[in-house]
């Protein structure tokens, strides 16, 4: 029943990376989420990443139908879901085949042997059974007849059909892994009690199977309980585990409450941005107006209308949708209305790699509009700080009367991590430019002297009736004015307004070294990978490598150039073919910007970064 092909010394680790894989219908996302939530509550730092097929119901057992969930837990700071696996839980041959590459040699695989039948092996294109042909000799394979054991555990539970029984085998696997890592089962049992409130037989069955897996692992003592990962040292406070897209939505909820404005979302579903819409529509209790439009253009159009009418207006999308929104975004820009456009980036061009991550929409965000059309561009860098940057995007839009593009990506949007909950009291004020009552000579394009933000006159306010539009406007009245000098003046004012945002954003900081031989530069969602790689070279003794990660892209922080001067070499790392690096080249003369790019729809791996850094400081 259980064979251990390779005995290894138990390791004591600060962190482990586990991946649960199986068929789309095997419940791997749920299994992974339960494990990571339990670990977070235990006090570990965590980072997770789900990986599902783009087909919704791929044929059972097929290679492309494999669904996976990876979780990295640690007693130390964990900033990525991890590259190489310590444990792979494979519920079928296809899962094993497509994920084995990531497992560290000598490490553990748990398989459900019942799933390794002729049919499934064929579907996974195995000529021989990998459990028998010695191809796994370099790993520690724990073979468990999970399906049979699940059936056995449930033989006395009433009201379950065969499908329901086999479906709960993921809880057997989860039970085993809980025991291995010394996790308590209570969180998951509570979850069953809530989720299946009206179906007590499902509470009973799932709990039974979870316990069966747990005690199975314990009783047979064949699995050493070696990996005791103690709680991580994290700042004290109240935490919850949050997904990037949820954090983005919540950042807007907070900004609306802070600013005292009503929140409007106009959106059209697109992976991987749709979860923001899913989250926002839940919050009618806060008066959130979420409008699913007929396309991305109508999505942004409705948001522009709402902004004109005085709401905090948001539109959310991914790359192809941003392309459609371009013209309307230009309109919002020339009308100088506050608007946040969220682009959760995915692999492009065109439909590209819809479920994979990439940072290739930066140039589109910066320049993807006709005419001179600068907008603020900022990027979140972790699942949890999507909250802060969504909040900040709203604040900048309202205080500077301009559209803001917030870039996130599939990796941080779908990833989850502990979030130290920020209460409303801790968040900064948000001002706005609304004119509450008319006064003599009020004009829509009179500006705040510092920010250059224009007056915001809202329909319904007596005496502020005015017309705005896409035609070039007079610098005071906002009436149409296509005079040559006026156009040049207005173009410069709009550019200057965005430039001045520099005065309101934090300076860029370095980590690990403030000057030296090499500055590693990143932006957006690669923070976790880059940070952990620089940290590791630093621990290895390379004290001369610094790290600067950009969240503010247009405008760039004021001290950017001064920072670059303190390093001999600058390496810009991006998940694209070189976009931020070109923005830096355009802005800063006299530097040689080296670049390290990956365009595989995947995050950076630790080793590839380490190799590159070491090569440059040799």
């Amino acid at each position, binding site marked *: 029943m259980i064979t251990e092909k390779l005995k290894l010394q138990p390791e004591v680790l600060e962190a482990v990376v586990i991946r649960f894989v199986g068929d789309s219908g095997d419940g791997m996302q749920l299994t992974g989420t339960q494990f990571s939530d339990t670990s977070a509550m235990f*006090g570990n730092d965590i980072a997770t990443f789900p990986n599902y097929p783009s087909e919704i119901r791929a044929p059972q057992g097929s290679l492309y139908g494999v669904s996976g969930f990876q979780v990295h837990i640690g007693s130390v700071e964990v900033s990525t879901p991890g590259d190489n696996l310590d444990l792979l839980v494979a519920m079928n041959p296809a899962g094993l085949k497509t994920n084995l590459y990531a497992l560290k040699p000598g490490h553990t695989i748990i398989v459900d042997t019942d799933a390794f039948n002729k049919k499934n092996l064929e579907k996974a294109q195995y000529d021989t059974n990998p459990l028998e042909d010695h191809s796994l000799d370099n790993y520690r394979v724990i073979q468990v007849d999970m399906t049979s054991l699940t059936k056995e555990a449930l033989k006395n539970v009433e009201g379950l059909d065969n499908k329901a029984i086999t479906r709960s085998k993921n809880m057997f696997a989860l039970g085993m892994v809980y025991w291995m890592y010394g996790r308590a089962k209570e969180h998951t049992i509570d979850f069953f009690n809530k989720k299946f409130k009206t179906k007590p037989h499902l509470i009973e069955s799932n709990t039974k199977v979870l316990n069966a897996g747990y005690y199975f692992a314990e009783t047979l003592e064949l699995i050493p309980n070696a990996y005791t990962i103690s709680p991580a040292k994290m700042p004290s406070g109240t935490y919850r585990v949050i997904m990037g897209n949820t954090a983005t939505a919540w950042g807007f*909820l907070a900004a609306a409450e802070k600013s005292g404005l009503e929140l409007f979302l106009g959106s059209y579903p697109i992976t991987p941005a749709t979860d923001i819409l899913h989250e926002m529509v839940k919050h*009618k209790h806060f008066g959130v107006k979420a*409008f699913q439009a007929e396309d991305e253009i109508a999505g942004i159009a409705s948001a522009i209308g709402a902004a004109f009418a005085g709401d905090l*207006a948001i539109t959310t999308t991914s790359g192809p949708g941003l392309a459609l929104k371009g013209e309307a975004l230009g309109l919002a820009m020339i009308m100088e209305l506050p608007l946040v456009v969220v682009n959760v980036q995915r692999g492009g061009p065109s439909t590209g790699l819809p479920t994979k991550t990439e940072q290739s929409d930066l140039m589109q965000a910066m320049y993807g509009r006709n005419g001179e059309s600068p907008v603020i561009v900022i990027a979140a860098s972790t699942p949890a700080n999507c909250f802060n940057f969504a909040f900040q995007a709203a604040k900048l839009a309202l205080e500077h009367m301009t559209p803001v593009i917030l870039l996130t990506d599939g990796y941080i949007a779908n990833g989850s991590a502990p979030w130290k909950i920020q209460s409303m009291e801790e968040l900064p004020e948000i001002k706005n430019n609304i004119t509450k009552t008319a006064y003599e000579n009020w004009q829509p394009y009179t500006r705040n002297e510092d920010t250059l933000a224009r007056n915001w006159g809202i*329909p319904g306010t*007596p005496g*502020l009736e005015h*017309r705005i539009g896409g035609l070039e406007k007079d610098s005071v009245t906002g009436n149409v004015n296509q005079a040559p000098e006026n156009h040049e003046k207005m173009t410069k004012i709009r550019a200057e307004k965005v430039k001045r945002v520099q005065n309101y954003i934090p300076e860029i900081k370095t980590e690990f070294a403030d000057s030296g031989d090499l500055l590693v530069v990143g932006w957006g969602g690669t923070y976790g990978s880059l940070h952990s790689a620089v940290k590791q070279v630093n621990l290895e003794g390379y004290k001369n490598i610094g790290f600067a990660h950009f969240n503010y892209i247009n405008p760039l922080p004021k001290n950017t150039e001064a920072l670059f001067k303190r390093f001999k070499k600058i390496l810009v790392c991006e998940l694209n073919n070189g976009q931020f690096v070109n923005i830096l080249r355009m802005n800063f003369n006299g530097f040689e910007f080296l670049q390290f790019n990956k365009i595989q729809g995947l995050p950076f791996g630790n080793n590839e970064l380490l190799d590159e850094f070491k090569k440059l400081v040799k």
Partner: protein
Amino acid sequence: MEAIVEKKYTYKDFESDQEVRWCPGCDDYVILRSMQKALPEMGVKKEEVVFVSGIGCSSRFPYYMNTYGMHSIHGRAPGIASGIKLANPKLSVWVMTGDGDAMAIGGNHFIHVLRRNIDLNIVLFNNEIYGLTKGQFSPTSVVGQKTKSSPYGNTQPPFNPGELALGANARFFARIGGNVPKDISQILVEAHKFKGTSLIEVLQNCVIFNDGCYNNITNKDVKEDKQIYLEHGKPMIFGKNRDKGLILNKLKLEVVTIGENGITEADILVHNAKEKDPTMHQMLVRLEYPVATGIIRSFDDVTLEEREDALTKQVKANSKFTKTNDLFFSGEIYMVN
């Protein structure tokens, strides 16, 4: 519901300080003045009126109104207007659009806004041509029409806006000539009163690129014989001598003469604009002789805002969340010391 205004406006209150720049003789002037005259009748405050347009000659409209307004981008006014209305349901929101703006580039938004039934008003300036870009055929240009982009005659069959709108479940549809300011004003007032999306197609003459395209329907001397001006609850009678009428013959509308072949007024169909089933309205909008004008359909239905509002109230009443903190600190939270 807009509050009733105490001060009585006149049309002058709705004139903006901008010089009107349409070609002399263009019907757009008639529509502008009809609107300025209709607004005082609506009993709505000036600051609660918003005009939104796309791009085209007709879309310059908002600049000439001394209300709130937005001249947006080509075809997208319905989306913008929807956002305005959802953000503030108290406003009276008007979409001013052309045949190209609404049915070519904006076709998708046009059908969806009608389907949703938000309480908006859409005035469609149908001149069967692209005016602003100097005379290309539009989605309402007729087959054979010679334009700058169809020098040998247009080969693309047109949309009938009413047919398209009713197909998209429009609850209110009216059609009116561009040369009858009083009738236009009256229909605008009715559209304003109607709760839901109302669409008014104005047969608008473009004197430069498609002059006279409606002459044989709208000209003073033919109009009574060629049009049937429909009024809810009234028999479908038309003609200079009020002796022509419509009856249903099998599945078709047929023009009959009262007093001939034993036809009396009692045989003539009575117009029911409020009927839910649009079948008769569809037949009316498709009629080529006589051309149906007036309010063809005015079916009262629940608006999107009403549905949204009811849902929001219900969710609010059942929710334990009033502040975002309640949400943030709810569910699975844990302490780190």
